[in-house]
């Protein structure tokens, strides 16, 4: 269609004419588009990291955790009664560690016991991380190599030796590789035996941050706390011959014995664990995207308002255009193109802003947002549609104006 070119230029000229007003008009769309893209990108990024974690830890990692046992009274009233009622948190103990390691099909297992202690090193007191009592098979279970040195010696469970997370090592010692250096936990000296490689942490994960942790032998941790240290997690891996499900069943049987059949622990496969997490994440992402989408809608309404004002302001111009032969359709398309252009340019600026925010997030946080081209396309498409839909109301108003009346309007 030939006239369309002229209309496009006309629309473009009017947009070019009032830069600042148009920027404020576009602001709603800019914020809407960039927030939708950013939120979806963050959600997708976290999901990618989680699935990366599955591959990395191995699908066969089994996690045993204490869980709470709720005695909520009347079961049927549970829904109204969420916050009251007795809740007993189960615990995992020495005998559970033994039980898990002896369960048929378990190749290796390690307890994780966080203890509260005072850590002092050459840089003073270290408060940033946990002290975790564990056993020698931990690196194997987590597929986590050491950067320097070796992990705890399985043959010497009482040794005053420690392995540090990378961030912990940096925070505690001046030296780049503080192997063989000593520091104290509750006044007892420990020798640094190894330093972990950087753990690939996942945001929103409920794992402790191992990068800042200090790992010591489990027995020593019990000694330090006089057997009061709580085990918050036991990790286990099945033997290659044993399927994961069978192993889980056998672990459950073993633990039921030690817990007197009280079901106050959970045994999770890694992939289940992660699937549950990403489901929650999906829901959250959708929710926030919805909110962000509302801001797109509000942006559209902003465009409509500015266009309405602009139509009123330019009534005389509309009159002139009509007098020299513009048809209603030509006036309509001029204004629709103008608002579509506003929202489209707003969308593009919004996409650019989203990429900037993405870069900043990657730089300053451990989030790794993943912006897919689909979401970019959808967001800018929606912004264009919003512009056309909301722009058509003022455009219709302009097109239907009587030429005489429009010509008489003097602002």
């Amino acid at each position, binding site marked *: 269609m030939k006239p369309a070119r002229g209309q496009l230029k006309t629309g473009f000229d009017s947009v070019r004419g009032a830069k600042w007003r148009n920027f404020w008009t576009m602001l709603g769309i800019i914020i809407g588009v960039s927030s939708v893209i950013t939120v979806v990108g963050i959600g997708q990024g976290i999901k990618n990291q989680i699935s990366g974690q599955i591959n990395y830890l191995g699908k066969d990692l089994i996690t045993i955790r204490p869980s709470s046992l709720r005695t909520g009274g009347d079961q049927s009233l549970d829904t109204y009664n969420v916050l009251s009622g007795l809740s007993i948190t189960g615990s995992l103990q020495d005998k559970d560690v033994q039980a898990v390691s002896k369960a048929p099909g378990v190749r290796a297992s390690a307890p994780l016991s966080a203890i509260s202690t005072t850590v002092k090193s050459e840089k003073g007191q270290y408060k940033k991380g946990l002290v975790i009592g564990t056993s020698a098979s931990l690196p194997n279970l987590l597929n986590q190599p050491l950067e320097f040195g070796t992990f705890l010696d399985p043959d010497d469970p009482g040794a005053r030796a420690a392995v540090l997370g990378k961030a912990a090592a940096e925070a505690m010692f001046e030296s780049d590789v503080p192997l063989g250096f000593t520091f104290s936990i509750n006044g007892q000296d420990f020798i640094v035996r190894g330093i972990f490689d950087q753990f690939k942490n996942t945001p929103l994960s409920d794992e402790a941050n191992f990068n800042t942790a200090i790992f010591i032998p489990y027995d020593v941790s019990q000694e330090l706390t006089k057997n009061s240290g709580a085990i918050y997690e036991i990790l286990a891996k099945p033997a290659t011959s044993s399927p994961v499900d069978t192993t889980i069943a056998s672990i459950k049987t073993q633990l039921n014995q030690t817990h007197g059949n009280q079901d106050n622990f959970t045994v999770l496969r890694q992939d289940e664990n992660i699937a549950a997490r990403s489901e929650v994440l999906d829901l959250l992402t959708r929710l926030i995207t919805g909110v962000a989408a509302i801001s797109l809608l509000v942006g559209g309404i902003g465009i409509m308002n500015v266009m309405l004002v602009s139509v009123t302001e330019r009534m005389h*111009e509309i009159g002139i*255009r*009509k007098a020299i032969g513009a048809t209603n359709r030509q006036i309509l398309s001029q204004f629709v193109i103008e608002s579509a252009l506003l929202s489209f340019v707003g969308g593009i600026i919004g996409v650019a802003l989203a990429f900037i925010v993405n870069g900043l997030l990657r730089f300053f946080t451990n989030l790794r947002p993943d912006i897919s081209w689909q979401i970019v396309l959808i967001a800018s498409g929606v912004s264009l549609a919003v512009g056309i839909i909301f722009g058509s109301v003022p455009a219709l108003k302009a097109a239907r104006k009587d030429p*005489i009346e429009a010509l008489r309007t003097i602002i």
Partner: protein
Amino acid sequence: MALIELKDVSKLYGFGDATTLALDEVSVTIERGEFVAVMGPSGCGKSSLMNVIGLLDRPSHGNYKLDGRKVAKLRANRAARVRRDTIGFIFQSYNLLPRLSILENVALPLAYKGVSVKKRIRQASTMLERVGIQNREYFMPSQLSGGQLQCAAIARALVNNPKLIIADEPTGNLDSESSRLVMELLSEIHKTGNTVLFVTHNPELTRYATRVLYMHDGNIIHDEQTAIGQVAATARKVLYTLPTTNEEDDLAGVSALMRARPDVPSVGRKVTRPKSRSTKKAASKRKTSVRRKKADV
């Protein structure tokens, strides 16, 4: 076949008691190649007539044939197309779009016709050359004088080769020099065969016209053929017998007189307060006398 045929055309504005009659069963026929001046006091319906003839407005009653085609009840979009292809408008206040350059302004009607950009620019440029301001084609309207703006507006009106040019007081905002320029331009257009219709208050400008229509209260009260170069006879009469003041000026003069009140000494005002009734009477007497005077007039 006449270019314009109006038959019993009326135009009403408003509803109910507020109805005003802008055109009262006007019938007029304008042939091709005429150069028609329309004169008359403000509010006599000149502009309404121009709007109806220019298809900017639809008549309330009556028939209108433009170029042999019935256009009285044309729908908005069709009317727009007729305006675009057969009518060129020139306004008193130029009505150029302020954010477009002169060239773009002139090319605008071509854009609505769907002419390609290249052709548009070329034609507009040629037209600007014809009106003598081609050297100003990339200027913005705010950078030009009134006369130049009106020339650009004339170029815009001509760019589509319309059969009819309608100019509503084209010289109303211009000094006499520019007025002459604009009128010369219009008369040149007329010489090339276009029909030109223009509204004016200035009897001098009837020199350019071949025919003068006088309007009053929505009627054409006088229709006179005139030779080019001569001020129309009726217009000359209008020129020399035109009342120098109007009713409003009269009233203002009277109130100014009353304020002066030479017979009431301003010093004695406070003292004469108890006698205010008598002064009021005097005032009312004076008023009645004024009224009587006016009635005499």
